[in-house]
């Protein structure tokens, strides 16, 4: 773990060095130095703008993510369990998967107006097919032998969900979460750029109009840090806890 951290910091420092050298050599305001970006960051932070817009974006990401994960899981469940549902819903899924995010965003803004609901719905619809495809695979790989066991011992629904299905679907939910956060926050920026008046995407839009590259980098880097923090402080501990049984099960174990 500490070795991973060391390598991580090493790569980061290396990148910063290359950036610093390049920016100094060019001396162009369109590629600001790391210091200039840091100054922009401090400026935006002390004015309160950074926190305000980061929170606005984070809120949209979380709301869209939770809804997409729930609906996508239900859809994936139906498609994985029933061949009929899969036949009916698969063309719809392929259509949504291949529909560019931008088209969906524009259409929803046109139809619903520049409102928050349209913004969130656009993100949700972009993410659902993704979750559904991953969870469909997960549901198809559910162990039929354990299913029989649960039938024999009359597991009530609550136990089937929490003790039988969720542990088997956990790796798939994790994959959907990881891919989901990364994808969703990028789409949220586009949604904000096109039709909201707060959030990181909106700020990027403003900065773009005056070619303020330092501000653009300051905002995007801070959001990357947030996503990374979610990964380290939330997802990885959760994963370690859920995989405890696999770690303990390794090795020879006790024998009689």
């Amino acid at each position, binding site marked *: 773990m500490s070795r991973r951290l060391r390598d991580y910091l090493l790569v980061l420092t290396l990148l910063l060095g290359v950036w610093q050298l390049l920016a100094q050599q060019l001396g162009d305001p369109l590629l600001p130095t790391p210091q200039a970006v840091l100054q922009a960051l401090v400026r935006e932070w002390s004015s309160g703008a950074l926190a305000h817009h980061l929170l606005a974006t984070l809120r949209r990401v979380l709301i869209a993510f939770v809804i997409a994960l729930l609906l996508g899981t239900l859809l994936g469940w139906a498609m994985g369990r029933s061949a009929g549902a899969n036949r009916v819903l698969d063309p719809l899924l392929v259509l949504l998967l291949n529909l560019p995010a931008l088209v969906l965003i524009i259409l929803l803004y046109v139809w619903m107006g520049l409102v928050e609901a349209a913004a969130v719905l656009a993100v949700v619809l972009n993410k659902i097919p993704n979750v559904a495809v991953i969870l469909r695979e997960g549901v198809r790989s559910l162990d039929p032998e354990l299913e029989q066991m649960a039938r*024999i*011992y009359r597991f009530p629904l609550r136990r089937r969900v929490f003790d*039988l299905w969720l542990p088997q679907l956990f790796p798939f939910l994790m994959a959907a979460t990881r891919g989901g956060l990364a994808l969703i926050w990028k789409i949220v920026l586009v949604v904000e750029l096109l039709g909201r008046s707060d959030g990181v995407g909106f700020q990027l839009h403003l900065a773009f109009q005056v070619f303020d590259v330092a501000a653009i980098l300051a905002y995007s880097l801070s959001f990357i840090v947030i996503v990374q923090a979610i990964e380290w402080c939330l997802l990885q501990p959760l994963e370690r806890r859920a995989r405890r*049984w696999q770690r303990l*099960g390794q090795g020879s*174990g*006790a024998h*009689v």
Partner: protein
Amino acid sequence: MFELQLTAKAYAGRPVLGALRLQLSPGQRLALLGPSGIGKSTLLNIVAGLDTEFSGTRRCAAELRIGYLFQEPRLLPWRTVAQNLRLVGAEPQRIDALLGEVGLPDVADLYPRQLSLGMARRVALARALAFDPDLLLLDEPTASLDGDTADAMRTLLTGVLQRRPELALVLVSHDPRDAERLTGQQLTLAAAAPRPPLERAGITTK
């Protein structure tokens, strides 16, 4: 208590089981013997109510509790031994006694992966007992165990059955020693194919 009237069972168009009639009353112990691939496990799944795709009728009270010791232990690998027992309804204070009965007093907090096959199968037996079954189904309880472990398993099962005189049993095995130790009645299943299933002599037991 339980009655199965099987006319035929085919799998993908191929006959697996022919006509047979099976009647069980409380405390009755029955062994089905035969080489592997003869359809013993299929028959056990039909008795358990897991396989409903057969022609014939299966009659039993809805509240008949069936404990099924599958050949694979089928414990939930992400739950500890104690949690696996809790999941079928064992009260916390009964868990030690159940594990003690199958000779594994110290495994409550282990995960199934930390157990050998013989131990895992005994935990699965404890789980079946935790369910308070009226009918116990055993699918090859000594398969893949070495000689001593298999003997220990037979001794353990003998004790379990002696302590529960009302418990009915259907045992499926390729090993006649299992049947001799555990049951009073033994039936040998013969190959169904290539004769048409209905012409086969029916097995009736009372």
